[in-house]
């Protein structure tokens, strides 16, 4: 401890850089893990199969008569058409997702909106919202309900209308849907059912729930990978910094080692002392960095990371991620931040420690 405090400024700056590095890495790790887990839990109730029609490689409206054909596929228990689309609101320069539902008891010209839209357009229940429909005419819609505010991760930009209003608004004919959803009796048969769908309706593309879940898993893994890549560069810089700090042992440090050897300390004793010094620095940095990251992600809702996700979007959900901590990841983080430091500092010290004390002190 006394030896560390003798070089207070140098060691404090090292501790600061080290803590910052752990903070960044741990923030990314905690955030992505929390989002991945939440996506898995929430999307577990997604439709088992979504069938889209592709025209010239692009998503197009699907004829309603496909519902009957899909219902005839063995194993399919339930079919339903989904009506959804996008609306760009020039007033606030935000994109909404307009979706039709028959489950909310919405009358014509009534809407249920996500809390994100309500916040951006400053709307409450009973207010009116005027949007331009597909024919360019203004359409006044009454807010009947604001969707459960805590579900913003799913519904921030949602605007629900009844199917009739939706078709009228977008001038979409009765005989088509945006896409179709299917339920399958036996989960083991889902892939077979998807195969049959493509055979019967070659212009369609089935999207399986398992693929959706896998996509989200991959999204966060990739993001984690991307940011980790950037941070690994930071880690490398840190290793170089630590190496430089230790290999360019100051004359004072060399003299200290020399004196210790001269008064009878073995090389192993010097190494053990230096190892303890390293442990003090890395343990303090790791714990402080991890704790700061936890506070950053779960107490400030990842204030530093959300701008990356927001991009150009005006409308963005306000949500608090739930801490789902993967202890294996935390252990990996510990390993990858503490070990490089220990290795980078120990070797130069060992080199100094095996040299003749007389030479070191000279």
């Amino acid at each position, binding site marked *: 401890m*006394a030896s560390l405090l003798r070089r207070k400024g140098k060691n404090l700056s090292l501790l600061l850089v080290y803590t910052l590095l752990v903070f960044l890495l741990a923030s990314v790790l905690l955030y992505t893990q929390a*989002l991945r887990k*939440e*996506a898995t*839990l*929430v*999307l577990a109730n*997604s*439709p088992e199969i*979504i069938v*889209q029609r*592709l025209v010239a490689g692009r*998503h197009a409206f699907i004829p309603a008569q496909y519902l009957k054909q899909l219902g005839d596929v063995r194993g399919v228990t339930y079919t*339903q058409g*989904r009506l959804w689309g*996008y609306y760009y609101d020039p007033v606030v320069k935000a*994109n909404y*997702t307009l*979706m039709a*539902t028959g489950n909310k008891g919405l009358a014509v010209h009534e809407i249920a909106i*996500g809390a*994100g839209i309500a916040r951006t357009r400053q709307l409450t229940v009973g207010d009116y919202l005027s949007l331009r429909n597909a024919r360019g005419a203004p359409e006044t819609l009454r807010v009947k309900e604001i969707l*459960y505010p*805590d*579900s*913003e*991760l*799913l*519904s*921030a*930009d949602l605007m629900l209308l009844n199917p009739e209003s939706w078709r009228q608004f977008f001038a979409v004919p009765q005989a088509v849907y945006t*896409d179709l959803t299917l339920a399958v009796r036996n989960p083991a048969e889902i892939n077979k059912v998807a195969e049959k769908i493509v055979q019967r309706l070659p212009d369609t593309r089935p*999207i399986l729930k398992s*693929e*959706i879940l*896998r*996509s*989200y898993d*991959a*999204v966060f893994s*990739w*993001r984690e990978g*991307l940011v980790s890549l950037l941070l690994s560069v930071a880690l490398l810089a840190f290793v170089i910094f630590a190496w430089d700090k230790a290999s360019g042992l100051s004359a004072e440090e060399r003299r200290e080692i020399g004196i210790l050897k001269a008064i009878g300390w073995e090389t192993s004793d010097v190494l053990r002392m230096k190892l303890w010094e390293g442990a*003090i620095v890395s*343990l*303090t940095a790791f*714990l402080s960095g*991890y704790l700061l990251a*936890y506070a950053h992600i*779960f107490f400030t809702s990842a204030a530093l990371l959300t701008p*990356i*996700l927001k*991009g*150009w*979007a005006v409308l*963005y*959900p306000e949500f608090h991620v*739930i*801490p789902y*901590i993967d202890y294996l990841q935390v252990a990996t983080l510990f390993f990858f931040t503490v070990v490089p430091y220990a290795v980078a500092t120990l070797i130069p010290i060992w080199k100094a420690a095996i040299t003749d004390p007389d030479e070191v002190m000279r």
Partner: protein
Amino acid sequence: MRGSTQFTILISALLLLLAGTLIDARLRQAQASTRLAHEQALTRMLGLSDLVLATEARYTRHLSQADFHAAFQDHPAALDHFPSGSVFAPPTTLRP
């Protein structure tokens, strides 16, 4: 007070806080159960397939519903210009 004692106190405090995060995580998970139930019910009722992570581009708002031309959606060879597009990977179904 000796330096080593100070250090022991500091590390003990940090370890205590670390244990605190474990308890906090458990409490938050328990608190979030109602919200998760709401979200799951909404997903089931509306047949939702995606999270609102970015609303700026179609292919990042409904990630799993993106078409094969997502990155070039405006005109052929149009490069992806939305920031979120560089953060999200394409859905697994669209990968070669």
